């Protein structure tokens, strides 16, 4: 089941007396939502995901935070002390490091997660097969997981965390460094997660988010610059030009106003949630 | 504190993959030096790095497994010298915790001490187990000491004294130079962060 996430007045510094990586973040994410965190490099996107996954308190013992984080029924003031897996699963930006390197086939790599959780991989063969199918990597099941391409590695890395049925899935810049084909498969995957898990992912570009996300949050220097749905986001585009590569979309919207029946117009209007 | 607790304390998070890297480095550093034609072996560089950045028990473990793996990979006699690697790991970790890896002259002194200790530890093994034959260039040195009238044990020990301190001083200095150039955001993740000179990045 998907879980809701609430952040109230959350601020975070990696060390005392440094500029805050996050300041005064307030947000409520309904369960089953697909939320994108947008913003330039260094805006605090990754920090926010690491905070939700429970990485920060443990790995940055000098860091200081305030506020309240609520995940499902649990209230953390300010953050969880340890990793919240398997409730919350985070896929890192560098998916190569998520392949353990200690198993020689993709299937065994996925089984490793189950073993860690004390579950018997033999009993869950069917669900592993289903997941492999869903991610389009059934043909990689017997291949060596450390010798795959970037897009393949990413999907295997995702499989290793999705097999635990996390209620919240966090993905750090999943679209970066993927070619066009891999991006469209990622889009399908994100769409298929909708409803079963709450999804939060980060991106520096807006193409993929406009296809899959139903909630848009823009961060700048650790502060929320924008928070709203797709339509509100598209209306705000002109003001976000300094933070995001929105030029193409703006021009397209501008250009399409004159034309009546072009497919581009329809796509853009659909994306914008307009009739 | 119990040993197992101490070990768990040293090996949190990033340390496990790092120790694994160091064991692999012990076994492959020779590849770099031979490609560059530098006549040093550095087969304990990984153990020393682990000792300084992680801790003595982790380094002892790394040293022992380096020797076992070296045995498995074609130098069968290395397994018998695992105790020497364990002592190297423990002693280097002990020095590092007392701040010996913060200044270059204590590093040199530590390397020399370590060399003497390594010679003392390996002499009985190579004398009693192998009669001083190590299948290395240093065998000639042992034979020389024997031919001038020393016992096997003495000859092996003199040979060790002649070559180990130099080798260990070089290893220590290389480790020191490497560690000094590491950014704090990385070293801060390891239990031995306070063992090394602090440096603002």
């Amino acid at each position, binding site marked *: 089941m998907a879980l809701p996430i609430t952040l109230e007045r959350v601020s975070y510094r990696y060390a005392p007396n440094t500029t805050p990586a996050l300041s005064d973040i307030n947000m409520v994410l309904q369960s089953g939502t697909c939320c994108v965190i947008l913003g330039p490099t260094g805006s605090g996107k990754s920090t926010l995901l690491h905070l939700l*996954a429970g*990485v920060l308190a443990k*790995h940055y013992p000098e860091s200081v935070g305030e506020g309240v984080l609520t995940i499902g029924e649990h209230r953390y003031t300010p953050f969880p002390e*340890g*990793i919240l*897996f*398997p409730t919350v*699963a*985070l896929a890192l930006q*560098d998916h190569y*490091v*998520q392949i*353990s*390197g*200690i198993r020689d086939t993709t299937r065994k790599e996925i089984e490793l997660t189950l*073993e*860690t*959780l*004390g579950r018997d*991989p033999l009993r869950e063969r069917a669900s592993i097969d289903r997941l492999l199918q869903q991610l389009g990597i059934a043909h990689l099941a017997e291949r060596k997981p*450390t010798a795959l391409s970037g897009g393949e590695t990413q999907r295997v890395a995702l499989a*290793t965390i999705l097999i*635990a049925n996390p209620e919240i899935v966090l993905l750090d810049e999943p679209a970066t460094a993927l070619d066009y084909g891999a991006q469209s498969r990622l889009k399908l995957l994100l769409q298929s997660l909708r409803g079963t898990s709450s999804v939060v992912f980060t991106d520096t570009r807006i193409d993929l988010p406009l296809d899959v996300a139903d909630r848009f949050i823009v961060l700048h220097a650790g502060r929320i610059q924008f928070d709203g749905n797709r339509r509100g986001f598209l209306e705000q585009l002109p003001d976000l030009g300094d933070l995001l590569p929105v030029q193409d979309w703006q021009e397209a919207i501008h250009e399409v106003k004159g034309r009546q029946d072009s497919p581009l117009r329809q796509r853009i209007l659909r994306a914008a949630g307009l009739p | 504190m119990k040993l197992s607790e101490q*070990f768990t304390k040293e090996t949190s*998070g*990033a340390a*496990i*993959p*790092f120790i*694994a*890297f160091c*064991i*692999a*480095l012990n076994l492959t550093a020779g*590849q*770099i*030096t031979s*490609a*560059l034609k*530098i006549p040093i072996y550095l087969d304990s560089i990984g153990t020393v*790095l682990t000792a300084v950045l992680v801790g003595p028990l982790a380094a002892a473990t790394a040293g022992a*497994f380096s020797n076992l*793996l070296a*045995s*498995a990979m*074609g130098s*069968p*006699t290395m*397994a018998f010298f695992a105790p020497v690697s364990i002592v190297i790991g423990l002693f280097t970790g002990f020095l590092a915790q007392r701040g010996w890896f913060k200044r270059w002259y204590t590093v040199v002194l530590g390397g020399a001490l370590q060399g003497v200790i390594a010679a003392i530890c390996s002499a009985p093994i190579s004398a009693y*187990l*192998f*009669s001083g*034959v190590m299948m290395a260039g240093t*065998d*000639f040195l042992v*034979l020389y000491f024997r*031919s001038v009238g020393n016992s096997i044990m003495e000859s092996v020990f003199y040979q060790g004294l002649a070559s180990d301190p130099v080798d260990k001083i070089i290893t220590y200095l290389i480790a020191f130079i490497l560690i000094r*150039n*590491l950014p704090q955001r*990385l070293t801060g993740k390891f239990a031995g962060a306070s063992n090394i000179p602090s440096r603002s990045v």
Partner: protein
Amino acid sequence: MVPDLRPKLAFVLLLSVCAFVLSWQVLTLLIALVLLLPFVLPTYHPASPRARRLFLRFVLFSVALSGAIITLNGWMIQSGEPVDTILGITLYSGGLLFGIQTASRLVLLSFSVLLFFTSTPIPVCINALQQSGLSRTVVLMLLLTLHFLDTLPERIDRIFVAQEARGAPVRAGFVSRTKAFFSILSPLLLSSMAESVDRGVALELRGFLLETAPSFHTLPPAKPPSPVTVLLLTASVLIVVFSLARWLFP
């Protein structure tokens, strides 16, 4: 299924004990036995073509080495009768005998250790260690070591090429090459540490190293040792006791 490695280990132990207490004539017989075993018993078949090459190469190396050890000892340890003079080098019987004893011991020790490792893939050893109670953390570390051993040479190559392309003097004089050495080792260490940090986080993010993490459930508990193991261990102990007794009460 994890194979029981204890009979093999007990056999290596027995051979090692023999190597220290028996005379070179017996040792030579045992060496011949060890050389035959990979052909006779399936348990001792080389695990891979690479292992077979490794074993053969080591056998050849040992022949050359034994020759060198025997000759050098015969020449430099001038005890006993002069036996022969070859190319102006006089060989003495005492030194020769010592050389033969040393060489046969060294060769038997090496062969028995190598016999174990060439017939047992390292991952199988690690599984067996895990089954006998080695901590999960150490098992994980060893498996990661294999991963690094797999990838490190390639990474070193890449950095080597990159440094050479940047003009690092990898082929110049000794001092420059030493500098080049740091320009290779330093990025290697830096990138590996950064990767270690990320890998540590990634492993935790999959539930490893958590205090609550249960142990692996895939391995059945170890069975009691087989009769072969017990027999081999008893033989080793008997040989040790016997030779101690002979040494104490000649």
